């Protein structure tokens, strides 16, 4: 009876796992991707380590289980002692030397891969690198492009071109992380870190903040959208003109990234209060002060914004001024 129950349980568990497996999801043996030469090299290190540590695991656990099984008590008296073996110098030297050799091999492998991971992979790059400034903030990412274009949460880059990110933070520590493209690099106030990547293909690559940064840390998401180089260039120029003239969707993008995490995409309120019909939305100066200084649980999301970004947001939030949420 009990065995039947266990069988049913195992079968159910198997069904659940098979169902998930069939959905074509990666199970997590290696990082997601890789979709950049940098991430591919990191994955190479992963597989080498899995092979080596897998071998060590089998040997060590195998020896442990074998010895315990082979030399188990089998009802002999407790007072019966094994042989007086206090050590074996040669054996101990061997098992000190072998790990040294294995670890040295791992270190050598890492050092060989390293230059292709923490720098540009310029061999196959099309065009000069694109340099984007990445600002971590509670609880969104702000991207500043060389021609003045500002993006929030979603970074658009050309595929097959080197991208260099200059990462820092305006408030607390965050960590920039798009697993399919690169490892994570911390965004630390007062310090600028840089990382290189080159998206191998077009597509959207997602990630989230990797360093605990406060209560909305799990919702501090990021995405990199890689598009063909020509598409990128036309978008880049068009967006620069639109943002300069105030006709872009920068206001909506900023609201969705910086405000909606707590207040909802329609300002309907969630963790933060409902903003619809709030009289403060009629007073740009008051909102500006609030955004730049924060209040209670609200972080200073707008500290250090350019006037372009601030004005875009102020223009956007006006639409919520009239629509009262009815409480």
């Amino acid at each position, binding site marked *: 009876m009990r065995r039947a129950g266990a069988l049913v349980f195992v079968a159910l568990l198997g069904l*659940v796992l098979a169902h*998930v497996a069939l959905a074509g*999801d*990666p*199970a*997590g043996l290696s*990082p997601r991707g890789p979709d950049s030469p940098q991430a591919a090299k*990191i994955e190479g*290190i*992963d597989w080498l*380590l899995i092979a*080596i*540590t897998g071998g060590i695991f089998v040997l*060590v656990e195998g*020896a*442990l289980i074998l*010895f*315990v099984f082979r*030399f188990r*008590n089998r009802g002999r008296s*407790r007072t*019966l*002692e*094994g042989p007086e*073996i*206090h*050590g074996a110098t040669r054996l101990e030297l061997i*098992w*000190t030397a072998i790990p040294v050799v294995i*670890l040295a091999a*791992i*270190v050598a492998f*890492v050092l060989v891969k390293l230059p292709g*991971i*923490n720098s540009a992979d310029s061999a196959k790059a099309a065009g000069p690198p694109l340099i984007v400034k990445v600002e971590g903030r509670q609880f969104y990412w702000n991207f500043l492009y060389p021609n003045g274009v500002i993006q929030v949460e979603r970074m658009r880059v050309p595929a097959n071109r080197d991208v260099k990110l200059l990462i820092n933070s305006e*408030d*607390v520590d965050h*960590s920039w*992380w798009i*697993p399919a493209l690169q*490892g*994570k*690099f*911390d965004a*630390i*106030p*007062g*310090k600028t870190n840089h990382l290189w990547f080159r998206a191998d293909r077009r597509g959207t690559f997602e*990630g*989230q903040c*990797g*360093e*605990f*940064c*406060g*209560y*909305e*840390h*799990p919702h501090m998401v990021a995405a990199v959208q890689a598009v063909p180089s020509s598409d990128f260039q036309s978008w880049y120029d068009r967006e620069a003109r639109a943002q300069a003239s105030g006709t872009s969707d920068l206001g909506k993008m900023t609201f969705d990234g910086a405000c909606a995490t707590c207040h909802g995409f329609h300002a309907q309120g969630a963790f933060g209060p409902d903003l619809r019909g709030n009289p403060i939305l009629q007073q740009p100066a008051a909102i500006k002060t609030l955004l730049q200084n924060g209040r209670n649980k609200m*972080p200073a999301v707008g500290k250090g914004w350019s006037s372009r970004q601030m004005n875009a947001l102020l223009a956007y939030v006006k639409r919520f001024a009239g629509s009262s949420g009815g409480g």
Partner: protein
Amino acid sequence: MAVRVAPDPASTIVSRGRFSSWLATVDHKRIGIMYILTSLFFFVAGGIIALLMRSQLARPNEHVFTRDTYDQMFTMHGTTMIFLVVVPVFAGLANYLVPLMIGARDMAFPRLNALSYWFYLLGGIVLYASWFSGGGAARAGWYSYPPLSEHAFEPGKGQDLWILAIHLTTISSILGAINFIVTIHNLRAPGMSWMRLPLFVWSIYVYSVLILIALTELAGALTLLLLDRKVGTHFFLPSKGGSAVLYQHMFWFFGHPEVYIMVLPAFGILSEVIPVFSRKPIFGYKAIAFSTVAIGFYSMLVWAHHMFSVGLPTGLNIFFMLSSMTIAVPTGIKIFNWIATTWRGNVILDTAMLFALGAVGVFTIGGLSGIFLAAFPFDWQVTDTYFVVAHMHYVLFGGSAFALFAAFYYWWPKMFGRFLDERLGKVNFWLYFIGINLTFFPQHFLGLLGMPRRVWTYNHHGWWAAWNLVSTIGAFVMAFGTLVFLINVVRTTRVGRRAGHDPWVADTLEWYTTSPPPAYNFDKVPYVTSARPLRDLRRRLQEGSVHA
């Protein structure tokens, strides 16, 4: 030769009465038991917090707790398990065992010893009282990085009380460490040279030295943070010219030795239990003793492997990769020595031995995942994810906690004169063994799938959700294991089988006296001629050459 200090006799003023005699005690055994019971209490508290967190993470977008409560819970879980459980429980075990193992009547400074315990208890009370302070408990994680832990981002009292609680436990540990070092230097039995010292005592010696170096430094770092918060200095505030990275260096200069403060005594326990239940001497006594010292030394040179993603110069990253890989060598030596000890032995699989062998097996997984983390480009992918959570729990639960339970089952008869029940013990072991692997192995996959640590929820389905559910189930399996242990403890106090003075036919001096030992420990301590004095004594008795 140093002067042998006669321990201060216990004060007799308040030593009458069952309760007050415990309050006023300066007996190392009673203090040890108080340490152990207090840390068991906090172990259960920290474990319940872990179960609540796993409930919140069992499914995507779960709402068992608010984000605010969750942040407080993971901060309290980590702080509890490190500062109120693992470090003090070893202080408790060492308090009980070191004087007995080296044939002393008490610790060198019995009153200081009592003071250490009361500071520890006070620290625990302050930490748990901080739940009820204005703004709740601290919520910046157990390493509380500024600027997040600065007043501007965390104005609540919880963070200040957290610093106070850690200061109190730190003072406790430092006083205890001084006491252990002096005791081990000065109060060893005649004939007990350093190479005849029990390996557990060796590990406590290195544990104490590391505490003196690392915890004093932590106290400094936290004092600077407290000054930032309360006095308006800005050591760690970049906006005013301070450095947030400086705190990370200061914290991890403590934080990595801390890992070995929590693991070396566990290694010491394994080096005591495995030979006794293999009926053989430890394989490579000197290699184990020296590797303990080597690990202690290297542990102070690896701190920045917690900071590979901070953006240190490449040369430094390479240095810390090399030093972190190096520390794997003495650790490997110990594992090989323990396994070799079982070879051709008469391996008795009592619960204590099961836990000890389980610790070797499970800790090996944590050691191997440590190699992944030392390879810093790979660390860039998995640092601050559930991969690290898995690694650290394999080390701390698989290594430290399994060894602790081995110690409980092994030394309980000495402490209380009764055996813990073997059948319940085996249920306890298997629930833990299955539970830890169910809970933590899938967390490696979660980290690689991109799940950061310290998230109160997630919005992913498929494997991400499946592994989280498996992990939560495993946590409850472990909780049942703990429940079985507690039942075992309660049951043992009433109906436990009585133990003689040396029920396991062991090697070291604590088994020479009665179970439990009298207040003065020994009538007479035999002259020590090897690392296994009790076995020597048995053999001499058999040969009839002892005229007692």
